[in-house]
């Protein structure tokens, strides 16, 4: 009982001290006593602080090292995340720019009248030199049909040769199975564009009679012919390339015309599938 009384007295005294201390002014008795006590204790504290200083410095040094390490790790994580963001944004910006160019082409005067353009991404590139085909991310669900021409704003790319609901296979102009009737925009000379058997991704304009006039630098476009019910797969006026060399030999029936295609078949990322209206 007496013990509890002692403790109760100490608690009450503490509460009284708190109350008085908080209510009195800075000039009050408790504040004055505290200042005196502080003056007495200050030398001890100063001595203690002096002793502690080297240990504090060592502790602060180690603590800073730990903080610097964790900060470095955090910054490295941040840099990695930001690098990924930069790559994503740059890719998006390039794609945006490319799509704008395609859109300008689709809405421009060079676009064929009877078709609507379906802009789509290339989801698979040619697997090798013997397989000149790409896959695009548009299929029968989007209205893509077999034999639909495929272009970019630069020129003719190829033709759709296989269709799935959400994808289509496009055979490029550089494939040996492709032949496109074409004409020289300057002279009107006609021929058939085929892949060059010896010039990598180059093309040739075949079946051009020796009497026809073709000069280097001429632009070759699709001929877009129609005979009765039959019509060319490719509408008139799609750019194919420019003539880089013209030659003929006495034993040949036709001129030898090399064409440099406008389209870079090695770096196709988006194309336009021409869907009939």
């Amino acid at each position, binding site marked *: 009982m007496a*013990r509890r009384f*002692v*403790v109760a007295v*100490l*608690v009450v*005294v*503490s*509460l*009284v*001290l*708190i*109350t*008085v*201390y*908080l209510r009195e002014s800075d000039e009050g008795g*408790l504040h004055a*006593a*505290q200042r005196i*006590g*502080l003056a007495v*204790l200050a030398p*001890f*504290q*100063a*001595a*203690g*602080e002096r*002793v*502690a200083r080297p*240990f*504090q410095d060592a*502790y602060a040094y180690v603590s800073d090292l730990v903080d610097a390490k964790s900060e470095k790790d955090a910054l490295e994580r941040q840099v990695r995340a930001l690098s990924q963001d930069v790559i994503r944004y740059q890719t998006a910006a390039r794609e945006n720019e490319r799509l704008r160019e395609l859109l300008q082409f689709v809405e421009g005067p060079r676009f064929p009248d009877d078709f609507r353009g379906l802009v789509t991404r290339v989801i698979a590139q040619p697997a090798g030199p013997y397989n000149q085909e790409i896959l695009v991310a548009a299929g029968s669900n989007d209205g893509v049909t077999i034999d639909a021409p495929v272009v970019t704003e630069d020129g003719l790319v190829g033709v759709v040769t296989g269709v799935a609901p959400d994808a289509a296979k496009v055979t490029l102009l550089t494939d040996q199975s492709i032949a496109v009737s074409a004409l020289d925009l300057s002279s009107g000379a006609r021929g058939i564009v085929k892949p060059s058997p010896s010039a990598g991704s180059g093309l040739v304009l075949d079946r051009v009679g020796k009497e026809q006039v073709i000069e280097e630098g001429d632009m070759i476009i699709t001929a877009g012919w129609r005979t009765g019910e039959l019509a060319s797969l490719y509408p008139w006026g799609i750019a194919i390339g420019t003539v880089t060399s013209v030659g003929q030999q006495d034993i040949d029936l036709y001129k030898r015309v090399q064409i440099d295609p406008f389209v870079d078949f090695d770096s196709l990322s988006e194309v336009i599938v021409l869907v009939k209206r």
Partner: protein
Amino acid sequence: MILDGVKAAILVLLAAVVQVSFVNAFELAEGHADILLLVIVGIALLRGPVFGACAGFFAGLVVDTATFGTIGLTSLLLTLGGYAAGRFGEATSDHQNQRARILVAVTLVTVGVEVGSLVVHTLLGEAAAAGTIVWSVLLPALGLNLVLAIPCYWLCRQIFPPPPRRARELPEVPVV
């Protein structure tokens, strides 16, 4: 008793100075070891609740003076802490595992004083986020206190040796 009082006053004074000018500088998260509290717990376990409460009251006055804090606030907390540690010591004096007894006492008093401090400061309008107090102050302080509990108790035991126990008298056996 008077000698114990003088020794306790000197020990508490030294512990308060060490606490204020030395130990408080070594923070883990935002918490630090509380040497003064460990000394109070040690004294209370060795000399009982009243002695522990008085030592706590005096220690609080010294700390509040040295830190220019609100006089009486730390006294209130350490008085109750010293009393509780003393009562715990009495209740578990026969316990076989003395280390566990000390560690449990330090845990209880550390948590109690920290929670009490939070409550009192909140009542005085100095509210702090309880979550921050628990994670950044209480847990680091508790960990450090538990690490230092046994050495501090050993020191207190050197200064306040426990009274010798009376030898248990053997019952007389009638000689047949």
